[in-house]
């Protein structure tokens, strides 16, 4: 175990996988000479050279297609989106080509790529540069979608994503790159895709949250503890495939659930989680699943408005109180 930042954990995962497998290479804007707009690829060009650390022009659809083509004939590209906001320009490549190729070819051509980069709310970057992008991917059969909340998860899940034989969308966060945590140094350490984790044990209510919202949820849990409300926090980590069992298991125990997401709520991840919890644990629920979501608006630039856009610890606390005071028990 070593304490390192989320950024360094990602960097270490890339380094280890590139050392382990010569087919793995990194491609994207500013990943080489500039060492990454957010420095996630720092030192890679020096260590692996321009053949395996490839700077591209600003052509998201183009270099994503390059990754897909390279994957068709035996390579394992890690494609960096400088930020996921720009992934919409490559969405056709990801959805219509990468995600469907194995199916359309009857299993002949699988596409082992990772598309990674930061996404989600950032600091005063406004509507075009500060949005939750996972919504464009987790609905798509053929894709896997990961949102790692901690340094250890960042490392373990990125390594699994790179080793996975399918297209994996791996969305990090500008606001988490600097956080520190314990990270296993063992190069064989990986975390399987599709496994949620209980971040905090509790008995009264289950709060499902990932990325920055997971930290808000833990803070809320601390505060609620003092009121005698015991909150269990579950982090899905992988959104597709979703580990419904761990979440349902927790709800069967607590009988109450709050789902938190940073994105605008309507038809988001929270909708699906609330829906399957209700379907699978209806009789165990003492209250309807409550959703705490980002405001249903684009991201404003003004600092004060931006604060109102994304769920706060307080909003989560209110929701937990709501479900606890609801009928039943």
């Amino acid at each position: 175990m070593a304490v390192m930042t989320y950024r360094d954990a990602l960097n270490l995962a890339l380094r280890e996988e590139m050392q382990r497998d010569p087919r793995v290479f990194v491609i994207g804007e500013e990943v080489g000479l500039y060492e990454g707009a957010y420095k996630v690829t720092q030192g890679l060009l020096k260590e692996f050279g321009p053949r395996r650390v490839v700077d591209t022009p600003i052509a998201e659809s183009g270099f994503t297609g390059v990754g897909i083509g390279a994957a068709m004939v035996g390579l394992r590209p890690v494609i960096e989106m400088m930020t996921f906001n720009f992934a919409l320009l490559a969405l056709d490549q990801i959805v219509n080509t990468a995600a469907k190729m194995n199916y359309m070819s009857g299993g002949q051509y699988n596409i082992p790529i990772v598309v990674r980069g930061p996404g989600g709310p950032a600091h005063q970057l406004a509507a075009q540069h500060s949005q939750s992008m996972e919504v464009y991917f987790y609905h798509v059969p053929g894709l896997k979608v990961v949102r790692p909340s901690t340094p250890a998860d960042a490392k373990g899940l990125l390594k699994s994503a790179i080793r996975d034989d399918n297209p994996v969308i791996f969305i990090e966060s500008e606001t988490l790159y600097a956080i520190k945590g314990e990270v296993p140094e063992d190069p064989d350490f990986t975390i399987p895709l599709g496994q949620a984790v209980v971040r905090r044990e509790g008995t009264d209510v289950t709060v499902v949250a990932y990325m920055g919202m997971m930290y808000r949820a833990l803070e809320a849990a601390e505060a609620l503890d003092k009121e005698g409300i015991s909150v269990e926090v579950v982090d899905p980590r992988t959104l597709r495939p979703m580990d419904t069992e761990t979440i349902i298991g927790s709800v069967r125990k607590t009988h109450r659930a709050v789902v938190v997401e940073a994105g605008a709520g309507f038809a988001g991840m929270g909708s699906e989680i609330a829906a399957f919890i209700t379907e699978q644990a209806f009789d165990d629920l003492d209250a309807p699943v409550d959703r705490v979501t980002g405001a249903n608006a684009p991201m404003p630039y003004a600092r004060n408005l931006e604060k109102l856009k994304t769920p706060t610890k307080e909003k989560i606390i209110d929701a937990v109180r709501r479900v606890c005071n609801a009928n039943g028990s």
Partner: protein
Amino acid sequence: MATSTSTNIGVDEDTAKRLLHQMMLIRRFEEKAAENYALGNIGGFLHLSIGEEAVAVGVTSMLRPDDYVISTYREHGHCLAKGSDPKRMMAELFGRRDGLSKGKGGSMHLFDKSVNFLGGHAIVGSHLPVAAGVGFAIKYQGGDQVCVCYFGDGAVAEGEFHESLNLVSLWKLPVIYICENNRYAMGTSLERALAETEIYKFGQAYKIPSEPMDGMDVLAVREATGRAIERARTNKTPVLLEARTYRFRGHSMRDPAGAVYRTKDEVEHEKLRDPILLFRERVLGAGTVSVADVQGIEKDVNDLVDEAVAFADASPEPPSEWLFTDIYRD
């Protein structure tokens, strides 16, 4: 710049027979596919390359088996020429279990890894960057193959054409982009879609060597492609070729010969340059092959295609469980 037409006949008997055989096989395969579409054995979209056979055959005849080919939804000819089994191709068109893609892809999505045929892609322009990626991998792996990417004149207006040409030139990748310019994108003629209708000229903007070729003359296609492959394989650099060709049928089986956007006269006039007739007359005239040879080839391709149809017809539907297989590779 006029398209370079083949100078001398310059093919031996075997080659002549092989080229004729392949072109006639593609023609026959698609005629039968059309029949079976009418019969309801084939569904969805069916795009025929009838009239364009010389491009697929001429180009592929200059490739090595380990070279890669990637194409559009109008890919039957490219797939057959690369060496795929007509039986499994027809079974795919029928949507049957023995199809190349287990019946899941259909006519627009033929893939055959055994011959390095990288598919059938139906989002216009989307496979051009993918081809660049194949070229990237060839270079990364230190191989000496090339990747041929066929696309239509309609794809030229898409952004991915530009992104791809810039990337393959910037990175010096062994990709040969071959535009099958049949002068129409569905109902839109070149003049109504492109500021520059001499498509090969776009190569200059990216410093990519490019030339037009007579897509109705299989030997002209061989000559130009030969130069391109030679260059791409040795220098590991891209080439852009524009094959001037014509689609005798409608855009798809749902487009009745394209009556609205082009005249009957134009179509009839173009049919005078039917690539199969042209080449047949040429090799007969030069005495490279005999009438009997031609009849033999005719019989052979008819048999092959009949077998293919019979095979497809006999192949069972894919089992229900297959709806959920191949979504992920585990």
